[in-house]
């Protein structure tokens, strides 16, 4: 008995010792855990309500006085300043004009976040520098020739139910009549379509409320399908057009085979906007050459600028696109240059197209958030003219026409379709909306933003009388487009408005004879006559046209590519991507295949030995999975530079037509050993080629 107790006690003591050890560890770690429970929580710095002491007020006042700032300046700074690390509330996607790019800018800070290459090769993004047969170059070709720039005009965010959904961005190239698709998961251009009918356009891109179609309206009439006719045959042979690009959301690409166009009279169609709510199924385009002036100042004819502006009225085009789609699907389109076009006589016979008179050489047509009103800005007329969809539908049903144009298109009676006209000032161009029943119109000549009130169901949403000018704020200078937060959707936010001022003149330090544009941020929170300018932001890259402002939290952006080996062109894992262990150089005749991986801070292989004259296909993948661990890859002298974002796979091809030793290196400062992240491409001269057996396989360089 005693023995057994002693045994038991001994074992218990041993157990207790072990347990004690463990308990000590637990105790120490519990103490730690109280400070950092589980994953250490990074406390976002709590912002306590600010109460300035007299000393702090004095400090603030001194800084303000030293910098000659008044109270409005201090308030404007406070409304726009972003402390380090804090994110903007909105993202502005702006046309980059002749740069062929898109700019993404944070609002209210107006900080440039990045550019997105679209129609122009851009080396930082490795866009168009992937050797011969670069798919981006292929996409930029027109009639077999590279066209390496674009004049980006109107970005259009994809919509669901008339709301921005943050998935895709479309943008038109006015100079070459192209439309691009940008995927907002990785902010890269995925597709560019060239309009087969027209040389240049203007009314792109505008989306229907569920992004079924992206509208590309033309501008300068030509002979459709790249045809020829002398200017004397303008009326007979020149035509305008609008194209409806069918968008396949699942593929993130235009479905070209289900896209179609409509022939239009040569009236120089301008901007477009799709109806929504009660006007869903229609879209609207204005025009400014109902005169069909064909110019020729050198022959003693009135110049375009006068001839095009002679008449008091042009035509608002009212297109029933759902009926047009049905007519296209019923096979009523004719092929021009291989592309289906609903001809004017079909549009007239099927009731697809109506005109409403609009004064005079107007610019934008913008549909109100509730879809009830179409606002046409006069440009050469000091009014905005407002049409209502109810009146338009009634006039169409009752055939309330004031006549037909030369091509047989019915012209709706102006007084029957007009809801209101509001006199705003000189040079009204474009209109946006807020959440308080106000509309905002840019006034180019007055160099101002006009705030005015909508009527109908918007009456009473603000203290002002309907259909009245409320106030104007001067902007610097010559405003073109303007953009309110989500201001062309079914539910605008108000809050902020951007004035895209074309001239900056004296606003910034002189930059030579070429000056930046000026994006100005206006505060439109308060109703009534308060609408101050908060900030001037110089845009020194191209001349932007339109922009759209989306709530930042709607964007579901990837931080890295979903998998290592991702092909961004195809948005999928690419089976051709090299993997760790599969690196190396293989040869088949004079064709060489390089499989390369890149990871901080080395390429594998580091030596690539080939023969002069070889055709090299080079596959490279960034093995990184960490946010912002981006590599670049360039070969000097061969015009190759890639951006290898985490997980990205790229293939490029080139002909090694010059012997020599070429360092390749990482062009993005990736790590402390970035400079060491390099290797050599050895191109052996031809005579040396005989020494190496054809068809042999060169061993892969071992890692490190």
């Amino acid at each position, binding site marked *: 008995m005693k023995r*057994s107790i002693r045994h038991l006690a001994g074992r218990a003591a041993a*157990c*207790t010792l072990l347990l004690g050890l*463990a308990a000590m560890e637990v105790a120490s*770690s519990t103490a*730690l855990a109280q400070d950092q429970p589980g994953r250490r929580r990074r406390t976002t710095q709590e912002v306590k309500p600010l109460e300035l002491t007299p000393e702090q007020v004095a400090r603030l006042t001194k800084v303000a006085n030293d910098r000659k700032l008044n109270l409005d300046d201090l308030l404007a700074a406070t409304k726009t300043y972003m402390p380090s690390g804090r994110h903007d509330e909105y993202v502005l996607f702006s046309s980059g004009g002749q740069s062929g790019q898109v700019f993404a800018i944070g609002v209210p800070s107006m900080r440039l976040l990045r550019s997105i290459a679209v129609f122009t090769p851009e080396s930082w993004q490795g866009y168009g520098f992937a050797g011969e047969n670069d798919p981006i170059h292929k996409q930029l070709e027109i009639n077999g020739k590279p066209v390496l720039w674009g004049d980006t005009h109107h970005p259009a965010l994809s919509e669901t139910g008339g709301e921005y959904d943050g998935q895709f961005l479309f943008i038109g190239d006015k100079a070459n009549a192209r439309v691009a698709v940008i995927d907002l998961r990785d902010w890269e251009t995925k597709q560019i379509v060239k309009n087969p009918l027209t040389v240049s356009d203007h009314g792109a891109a505008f989306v229907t409320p569920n992004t079924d179609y992206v509208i590309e309206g033309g501008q300068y009439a030509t002979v459709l399908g790249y045809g020829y006719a002398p200017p004397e045959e303008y009326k007979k042979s020149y035509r305008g057009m609008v194209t409806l690009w069918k968008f396949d959301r699942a593929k993130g690409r235009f479905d070209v085979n289900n896209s179609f166009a409509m022939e239009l009279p040569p009236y120089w169609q301008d901007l477009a906007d799709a109806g929504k709510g009660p006007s869903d199924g229609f879209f609207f385009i204005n025009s400014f050459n109902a005169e069909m002036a064909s110019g020729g100042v050198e022959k003693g004819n009135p110049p375009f600028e006068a001839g095009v502006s002679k008449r008091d009225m042009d035509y608002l085009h009212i297109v029933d696109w759902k009926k047009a789609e049905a007519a296209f699907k019923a096979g009523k389109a004719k092929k021009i240059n291989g592309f289906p076009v609903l001809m004017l006589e079909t549009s007239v016979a099927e009731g697809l197209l109506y005109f409403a008179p609009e004064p005079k050489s107007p610019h934008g047509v913008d549909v109100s958030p509730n879809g009830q009103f179409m606002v046409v800005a006069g440009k050469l007329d000091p009014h905005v003219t407002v049409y209502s969809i109810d009146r338009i539908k009634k006039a169409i049903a009752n055939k309330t026409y004031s006549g037909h144009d030369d091509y047989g298109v019915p012209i709706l009676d102006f007084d029957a379709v007009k809801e209101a006209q509001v006199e705003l000032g000189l040079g009204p161009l474009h209109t946006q909306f807020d959440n308080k029943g106000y509309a905002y119109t840019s006034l180019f000549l007055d160099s101002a933003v006009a705030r005015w009130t909508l009527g109908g169901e918007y009456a009473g949403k603000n203290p002002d009388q309907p259909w009245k000018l409320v106030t104007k704020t001067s902007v610097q200078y010559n405003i073109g487009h303007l953009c309110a937060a989500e201001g062309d959707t079914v539910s605008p936010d108000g809050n902020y408005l951007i004035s895209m001022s074309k001239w900056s003149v004296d606003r910034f330090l002189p930059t030579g004879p070429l000056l930046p544009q000026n994006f100005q941020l206006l505060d439109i929170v308060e109703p009534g006559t308060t609408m101050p300018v908060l900030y001037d932001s110089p845009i020194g890259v191209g001349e932007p046209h339109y922009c759209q402002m989306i709530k930042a939290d709607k964007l579901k952006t990837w931080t890295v590519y979903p998998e290592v080996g991702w092909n961004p062109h195809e948005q999928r894992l690419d089976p051709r991507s090299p993997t760790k262990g599969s690196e190396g150089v293989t040869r088949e005749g004079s064709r060489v295949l390089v499989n390369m991986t890149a990871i*901080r801070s080395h390429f594998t292989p580091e030596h690539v030995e080939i023969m002069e004259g070889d055709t090299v296909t080079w596959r490279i993948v960034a093995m990184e999975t*960490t946010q912002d661990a981006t590599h670049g890859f360039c070969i000097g002298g061969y015009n190759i530079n890639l951006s290898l974002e985490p997980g990205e796979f790229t293939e490029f091809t080139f002909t090694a037509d010059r012997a020599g030793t070429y360092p390749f290196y990482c062009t993005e400062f990736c790590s402390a*050993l970035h400079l060491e992240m390099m290797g050599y491409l050895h191109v052996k001269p031809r005579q040396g080629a005989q020494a190496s057996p054809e068809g042999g396989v060169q061993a892969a360089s071992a890692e490190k």
Partner: protein
Amino acid sequence: MAGFIHSLLGPRVPTEELARRRARYLTPTLILMAARVLLLLSVFLPYWHMELEAPQYPKGLYLTAYVNYLAGDVKEIDGLNHYIGMRPLHQAASFERSVAVWAIVAMFLLVEGAAFVHSKWAVLLALPAVSFPAGFLLDLKFWMTSFGQNLDPSAPLSASVKPFTPTVLGEGGIGQFRTYAELGNGFYLAIGCALLTIVGFYFHRRAYKPLADAMRGATPALGGV
């Protein structure tokens, strides 16, 4: 032979005794059952965490050790470790991780067995489960020391980062990183299992020792049971 097995298994409880004092005999069984459940659950929970903090990683890097695998930013941490010449993490404790689940199942079965063995030898069956948490920590310490002390001298940063002993629990530092290591819930469950097993054995001996003493009295030839 049968007698020996009988003595190892210890005394069976007479039916009338069981009916009279059910709670006395049920208590150790239930407590040991709870201990086994905790141990089994611990397989699914992390045993150990480390967070690494550096200026260029505002969200931090995380390493989480389960008994049978490593999770978290292993790839990135390996990527960084190659600069200082540390071996890839998957090479650490690979044998232990490969057998961990079976070892825990074995410990589970042993503790299960202990509930049915009424002799004092039952303690031996429970010993692995009781000492497991300490074993885990010692093993972790061994591997971390081994990894920290055996850096590749030809690594790029070998001049600025010398061999070191990583901190197994609490705050440490290496290069521009601060490290914060702590035990995970899986480990606490294993501790819970160990504690419950000990408590269970207190009740186990309280219930069965008098029976064993009585049995020993009846069969003195076997003695010592």
